[in-house]
């Protein structure tokens, strides 16, 4: 029995094949433009206002919506839904448990995964979106539930717009697979 348990750790399959050079280039172009758009507004236009548009979890989202565009995890429902659901949960966890950040952090991420699963909006960067709110200190936590709208909602919409425009420029690419 113990043997069977450890045998499960050996794996049963192999890594999927490497994608074509075209796919690699288009992934690069999409991610560059998507992050550039959000980062330019964040640093160029919003710096003086104290508002935010760019958060770390968008880097992870870029991997999916520009690099693995066929994945169910990368579709608009998952991308937007996952970020919004997780942002709500992150803010709520912080507000309920504020001095106990270790507990708020763990609860925010774990609950985000559970609720994303239940709502069919699983999007891995959502876990980071929830965590970022808890661990970033006053510049972010002062936003309160506004965090859900901005940076999370607004930033995600811009990145989705770039994904729709750029991914469909490539002759052999098409995005999304489904909207909802």
């Amino acid at each position: 029995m113990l043997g069977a348990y450890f045998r499960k750790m050996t794996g049963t399959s192999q890594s999927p094949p490497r994608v074509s050079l075209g796919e690699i280039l288009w992934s690069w172009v999409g991610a560059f433009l998507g992050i550039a758009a959000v980062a330019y507004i964040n640093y160029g236009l919003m710096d003086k206002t104290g508002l935010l548009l760019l958060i770390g979890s968008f880097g992870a989202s870029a991997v999916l919506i520009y690099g693995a565009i066929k994945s169910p995890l990368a579709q608009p429902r998952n991308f937007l839904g996952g970020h919004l659901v997780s942002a709500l949960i992150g803010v709520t966890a912080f507000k309920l448990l504020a001095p106990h950040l270790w507990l708020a952090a763990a609860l925010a991420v774990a609950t985000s995964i559970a609720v994303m699963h239940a709502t069919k909006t699983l999007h891995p960067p959502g876990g980071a979106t929830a965590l970022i709110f808890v661990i970033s200190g006053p510049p972010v936590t002062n936003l309160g539930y506004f965090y859900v709208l901005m940076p999370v909602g607004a930033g995600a919409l811009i990145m989705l717009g770039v994904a729709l425009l750029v991914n469909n420029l490539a002759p052999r690419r098409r995005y999304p697979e489904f909207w909802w």
Partner: protein
Amino acid sequence: MSEAHEKPESAPTPGIDLNEQDILEAMRAIPGYLDITPGDFREVYRLAFQHALERLSRDVTAGEIMTKDVVSVNPDTQLADVAAAMGRRGVSGVPVVDAELKVVGIISEKDFLSRLGVVEPRNFMSLVADCLMTKGCVALPIKVALAGDLMNSPAVTVAPDTPVRDIAALLTQHSINRVAVTDPNGRLLGLVSRGDIIKATIGRESAC
């Protein structure tokens, strides 16, 4: 679950035996990063193939699996002759047809048993039990009766294009063992028994 994942070889793919190399080649032919391992794809394929087989088997119709060479009797056939015919053919039920070959009823072993005074006729053993528990064996009160007196009427009938899955539901719903297959005018085309359905499930080649 764990068994299916322990070794890819332990889950043979029905139909076409895909190996991971085939799947890798196919994945290379599709541009873009596919978010699945070849092993998981193989598992999806195996289950989908099984599902398709089941679906196709459900779509088999009465006309395809019915027994066509059926012995039938008339409403005025003597029950002794009906029983003899059933015995000769080794069947437990026969359709009763009128002069125009229209199905007017079905007679089964169960109908005989209930006529022989068995209170709750389930099978032949209820008759044996009745015989053993009462004095002497069942007097045959039906010696002079006719098929028309004993038959279940109207018979449960289906059209040749009725799916087997619907027939299975009918058999269960009416607690019967066979249905008559008839043309639009009610004329007998064949019988579908529980046995026919089982044979069709095992595979069409063994059904004929």
